[in-house]
């Protein structure tokens, strides 16, 4: 017997359900753009001739008119509104009609194919495998989607602002004035202060996280008794599980005022949104990240190396400093790189505790802004989609994505390569 009865049944079910489901999904994804396209054809000629922003505006007006009848209607838009109502009615019927008939057709075809000869199991399994394959394809599609969206918008941005000005300019003031004759009308997009701010905050975070995380990992893996380890390790990892918005709140309302008070007592001028507060809290957040990754690599150093060192009369800390750390160094470097990429991409802590002023400074008591904060401020709220202000966020996103991607890629390679050595 090549197939069991339930193989035939499953095959039927798959053939009946899957094609219709795929049709419904693609339909829903494509519905909005297609309707938009059809509506544009119905708009008055002078709007159609205008630029894309005006077309967008008109389209959204049409949607509003169609959904609520009480609004005062612009007569030139009425054909489009009526067309939209008709379209909506038609798509609903078309959609379910086509899906149902597809179900029916597939059912009949498969039903007629069911014979003892039919290798139902093989066929069913290849369909299932195809579904599994497409699931793993989604991860790849996500990357492609990220790259496509960020690259496309960034490219539009670089058509208006030169990449040189963006990457090397030192003034960041993205506010574009509404009228051309206002002062500061152009807006300047030199991202250097943002990069500097991001690096400053990440550096402060690393100064906290790397020594403490590393020492904690060494203590827990080499010194601590197994019962201490059993409780201390998960407790440290709780720090990594706390939502970043909670850290942000803590940084903005507890740490920042505390540092300000301390600074004032010492006679220093401390900004209420100092880089130090955001960096400190971010460092605490990253401690478990560094410690658990370094813990893994330290544990991967074979016991024979420790025994050899002890045999030569080295003390525990000499063994750790001169044998284990050098042996684990590539892995630790990898862990630190991953932590840096985490710090650069962290958003909520800096959005809540760091400022918006794009100062180019190395003073940790001053207020700085970061790439992620600017992405959030530029994109939160309503905005027209093709102004340089909005597009700048995508250009920043592109830089952020590339930098973290390179860091992650290199770090993962290092960690992997190192693990294989002792396996």
């Amino acid at each position, binding site marked *: 017997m090549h197939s069991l009865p339930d193989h035939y049944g499953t095959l039927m079910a798959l053939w009946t359900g899957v094609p219709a489901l795929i049709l419904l999904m693609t339909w829903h994804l494509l519905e909005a753009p297609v309707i938009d396209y059809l509506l544009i054809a119905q708009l008055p000629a002078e709007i159609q001739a205008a630029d894309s922003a005006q077309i967008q505006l008109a389209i959204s007006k049409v949607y509003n008119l169609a959904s609520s009848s009480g609004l005062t209607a612009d007569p030139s838009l009425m054909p489009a509104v009526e067309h939209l109502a008709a379209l909506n009615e038609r798509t609903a019927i078309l959609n379910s009609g086509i899906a149902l008939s597809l179900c029916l057709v597939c059912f009949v075809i498969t039903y007629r194919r069911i014979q003892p000869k039919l290798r139902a199991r093989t066929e069913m399994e290849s369909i299932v495998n195809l579904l599994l394959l497409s699931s793993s394809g989604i991860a790849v599609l996500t990357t492609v989607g990220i790259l496509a969206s960020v690259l496309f918008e960034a490219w539009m941005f670089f058509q208006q602002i030169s990449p040189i000005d963006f990457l090397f300019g030192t003034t960041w003031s993205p506010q574009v004035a509404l009228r051309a004759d206002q002062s500061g009308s152009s807006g300047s997009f030199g991202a250097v202060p943002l990069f500097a701010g991001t690096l400053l905050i990440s550096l402060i975070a690393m100064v906290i996280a790397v020594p403490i995380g590393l020492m904690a990992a060494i203590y*827990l893996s080499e010194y601590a008794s197994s019962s201490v380890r059993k409780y201390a390790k998960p407790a440290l990892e709780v720090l990594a599980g706390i939502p970043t918005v909670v850290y942000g709140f803590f940084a903005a309302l507890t740490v920042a005022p505390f540092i300000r008070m301390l600074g004032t007592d010492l006679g220093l001028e401390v900004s209420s949104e100092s880089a130090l507060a955001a960096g400190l809290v971010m460092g605490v957040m990253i401690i478990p990240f560094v410690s658990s990754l370094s813990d893994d690599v330290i544990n991967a150093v074979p016991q024979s190396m420790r025994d050899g060192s002890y045999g030569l009369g080295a003390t525990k800390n000499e063994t750790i400093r001169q044998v284990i750390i050098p042996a684990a160094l590539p892995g630790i470097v990898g862990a630190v790189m991953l932590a840096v990429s985490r710090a650069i991409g962290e958003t909520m802590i800096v959005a809540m505790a760091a400022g918006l002023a794009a100062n180019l400074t190395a003073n940790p008591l001053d207020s700085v802004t970061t790439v992620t904060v600017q992405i959030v401020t530029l994109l939160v709220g309503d905005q027209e989609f093709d102004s340089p202000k909005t597009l700048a966020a995508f250009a920043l996103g592109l830089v952020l994505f590339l930098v973290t991607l390179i860091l992650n890629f290199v770090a993962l390679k290092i960690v992997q390569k190192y693990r294989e050595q002792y396996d």
Partner: protein
Amino acid sequence: MTDSKTTNSNTLTESKNMKPTQLTTRQKVELSLSRRRAAETRFRMYGMASVFFGMLCLVVLFTDIASKGTAAFKQTSLKTEIFLDSSYLGLTKDSKVDEVRFANFEGLIKRQFAKNFKPSGRKETRELFKLLANPEVLDTTISIELLMDDDVDQWFKHDRDLSTDETNDRLSTKQLSWLNNWVEEGRLDTHFNTLFFTNGDSREPELAGIHGAIKGTLLTLMVTLLLSFPIGVAAAIYLEEFAPRNRMTEIVEININNLAAVPSIIFGLLGMAIFINVFGVSRSTPLLGGLVLTLMTLPTIIISARAAIKSVPPSIREAAYGLGASKNQVVFHHVLPLAMPGMLTGTILGMAQALGETAPLLMIGMVAFVVDVPGFINDPSTVLPVQIFLWSDSPERAFMERTSGAILVLLSFLVLMNTTAVILRRRLERRW
């Protein structure tokens, strides 16, 4: 210890007989021993201090937020008597429900307090309306509890014991004297703040609640779970069991590992550019939030599901093959059930990550001020972390309290999920 000390002194006496500059290796080692031991202790202390520092941060964080937030679960109200004046309300015993609903209860309360104090309106109106479902109470005096304004609430809960000299910039001296009177009469009291759990967002701190945010969070997580669990498990099965070992598979694997470390805000950009602008999914909805969070948690789930599949020993597979099972039957009938606890644990941890995520949701419009509680996945809504972010921006002191309260609720959800994951792992996971 005693042993080493005696040898130490022996060698020292020996060395006196020799030329003092020429030390043997043994002597050099012994002379350096105390320094090396001190270094050892120091190093150990650094390690302990690091672990201790981590714990300390955790404790400080929790106590800080708990001390700020517990007061949010209490709300001050004023016990007062009110005369339901039928002529003022314009109602008779035969009035219809709609007339009762629109009767001027607020005016009645205001009149009662005449030039006195202004408590905020809505809740007491509703209470009065409830009373009037039974029209018999018209023209009688009833006792109700009036919800107090956030400034009064803060004063009553925190500053009451301060001397009156310390000026309260929110309340005037006159207002403070009334309040003190009420306190002496025992009419001001705090109750459990049910409104905090039953109301949506509001501009008035005393009326703002997290019901809408919690509902939005649950809907968003539901979408995320329904999408990311099946897709993640399917992808893991494919990569672990079926994928040919070639360049393509390697690229997919590297890709997934990298995606797990991409900053979450990038997923927000993706959601904005692709889901909103290309596919026209409407902004601020749990559906959109769920889609974005699915893409974000997928790598985590795939990685943990693969680890779970890997931990199923080959003997199980071989036994199944030996009984004539096909590759798919081996995977779906034997490997998958055995790997399921591990997969579930990974999924819960992924969901916990999604629950705490804020940044990508800011990009896709979930920061909108939403008063209504969302009904389904296509209603505009906000989620708990975003609500925390929004409230933390508000200047009122009462909102800070509520922010901490909301954080406590969020943290307890997280604790619940993580404990479930740990219990699941302990109970179900087998060691082979």
